[in-house]
């Protein structure tokens, strides 16, 4: 059987399994088993099992639960409210100040809590009612929360980068450093947009009442005080990766310890919070491990059947030049992002796309940042933008899914623009990792 027919058959089988409601992790695994036996023989199933074993011994994978746990501990300690309150008293006098505060807090939180759902849910509970009460338009209020929450994919410690590093063999430390500047650029673009709107249409983005933000410098500084320790933890984790004194796993483990200490010192530690942080970390991490098990089996079978090689040749053979191929990859990522989760896209497409792009002369770290930019879009884009669903879960009942999806379009536009900036100026991503000690 020729490889192109095989590719279509595997794709069809996968889609069929997913339509039956089988989770991606097990759909990929089952398709791998079926095609393994069909194409070769029953002993191929040993490969499926040994892939699981190999991943269980993968040292980088251990950093995943650690980074998630660090985020969960800080989140249970109420870091999100602290950050938002601080950002609000400092930026409240600006027109559109609340929306600006949302984006600034999301960017700060992204540096401590690399978990998107947590930020959006907190902002939906804390910031959204405040904005609606002061007469903010739904478009600006909902859009800024969804878009701001997405920043966690780009600003380290992002779980997306760890997964990308594992799939493509790049360095986590370099990816983290590469995400910082583009993440800040994107946040700045959001802020410029929000402020622009608030000057053109002051009625949908008013400034905060004077009495709420004129509380004196000392009181304003008091809000910042609570952020010092968690900030130090985040800075310590990134700093140790930047200087290379700790491996990602060690940095994450110490980060967990630091997060617990910060919670205790700020008098926010509770055993119930700790327990639920561990429970949530376990659920998410099991899911991610099993996704890896399944996808790696499927990609393994497809590779020995000659499929990966075939797709690479097919792509490099396209008569559209390397920029054309890059454009095609981006379009596929954006399109897939509308219907499936980033993790599925990453595990199934990165093993094929990234080597092709690297052969064409693109930098794998830069491609990683580009992938994250694409996944920002996927978080917002209907019909399956996870950010919108998180926000719907936390928002008051008067907010409909339609309201949320209508609000995200300008922000998707900004994300596409930022993607363009990243592609036009790769140095925005690459200069920071290039200054790292190796």
């Amino acid at each position, binding site marked *: 059987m020729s490889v192109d027919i095989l590719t279509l058959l595997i794709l069809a089988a996968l889609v069929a*399994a*997913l339509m*039956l*409601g*089988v*989770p*991606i*992790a*097990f*759909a990929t*695994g*089952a398709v791998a*088993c079926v095609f393994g036996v069909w194409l070769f023989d029953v002993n191929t199933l*040993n490969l*499926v*099992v*040994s892939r*699981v*074993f190999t991943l*269980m*011994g*993968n*040292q980088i*994978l*251990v950093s995943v*639960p*650690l980074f*998630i*746990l660090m985020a969960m501990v800080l989140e249970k300690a109420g870091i999100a409210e602290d950050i938002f309150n601080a950002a609000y008293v400092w930026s409240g006098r600006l027109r559109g100040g609340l929306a600006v505060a949302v984006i600034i807090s999301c960017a700060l939180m992204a540096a401590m809590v690399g*978990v*998107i*759902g947590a930020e959006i*849910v907190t902002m939906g509970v804390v910031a959204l009612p405040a904005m609606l009460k002061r007469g903010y338009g739904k478009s600006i209020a909902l859009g800024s929360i969804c878009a701001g929450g997405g920043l966690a994919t780009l600003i380290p410690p992002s*779980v*997306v980068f760890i997964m990308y590093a594992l799939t493509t063999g790049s360095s986590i430390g370099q990816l983290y450093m590469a995400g910082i500047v583009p993440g800040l650029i994107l946040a700045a673009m959001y802020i410029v947009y929000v402020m622009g709107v608030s000057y053109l249409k002051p009625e949908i983005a008013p400034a905060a009442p004077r009495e709420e933000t004129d509380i004196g410098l000392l009181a304003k500084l008091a809000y910042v005080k609570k952020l010092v320790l968690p900030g130090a933890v985040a800075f310590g984790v990134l700093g140790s990766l930047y200087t290379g004194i700790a491996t990602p*796993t*060690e940095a994450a*483990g*110490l980060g967990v*310890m630091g997060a617990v200490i910060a919670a205790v010192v700020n008098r926010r530690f509770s055993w119930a919070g700790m327990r639920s942080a*561990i*429970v*949530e*970390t*376990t*659920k*998410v*991490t*099991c*899911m991610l*491990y*099993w*996704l890896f098990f*399944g996808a790696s089996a499927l990609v393994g079978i497809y590779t020995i059947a000659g499929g990966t090689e075939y797709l690479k040749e097919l792509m490099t053979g396209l008569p559209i030049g390397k920029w054309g191929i890059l454009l095609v990859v981006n379009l596929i990522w954006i399109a897939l992002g509308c*219907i*499936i*989760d980033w*993790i*599925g896209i990453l595990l199934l497409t990165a093993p094929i796309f990234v080597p092709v792009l690297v052969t064409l002369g693109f930098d794998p770290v830069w491609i990683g940042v580009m992938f994250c930019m694409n996944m920002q879009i996927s978080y917002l884009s209907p019909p399956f933008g*996870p950010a919108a669903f998180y926000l719907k879960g936390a928002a008051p009942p008067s907010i409909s899914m339609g309201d949320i999806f209508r609000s995200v379009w300008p922000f998707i536009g900004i994300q596409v623009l930022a993607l363009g900036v990243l592609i036009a100026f790769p140095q925005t991503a690459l200069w920071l990792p290039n200054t790292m000690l190796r």
Partner: protein
Amino acid sequence: MRHFVYWIGRTNEWVGRAAGLLIVAVVLIIVKEVVFRGAFNAPSLWADESMTYLAGMAYALGGGYTLLHRKHVLVDLAYGPIAKRGGSLKRSVDIAGFVVFSIYCLTLVYFGWDMAVTSVQQAEGSGTLWNPPLWPVKLTIPLAGLLLFMQALANLLVDLGLAPAPALHERAGVTP
């Protein structure tokens, strides 16, 4: 069947909680290792390997736990409308989905058991200086497959309306 669903749920709940606690052990190993290496210049042979395999075993075994809480990512675009419609279409789709699911789990049980037995017979070690035996890690694979399979069966029974859904201590969860 009600008892089956209940006890499988209980088992996976406890396996999941125990697995979750292993992350605390991993954190402690890391802190201990960094302190000993930094302060006393005494790195240990076993730290890296032990925490990696501990985490690997914990999260492999927790697959059934995550399935119990239905937190494995699925593609709603395809299955959502079917689930919403319900009726006999949903029932047949659920059964077919379970069959697909079983292909993978039973592969892990059967071939994973094979691999574990071979590992015991050969007294296989990891080949590092510490050289721990690998069979406990390999034995986790068929065990995890079995836990997943049982949970999938229990979930199917619940979905078909043959048993009540087990009560879960659910909190508002988030995924990255």
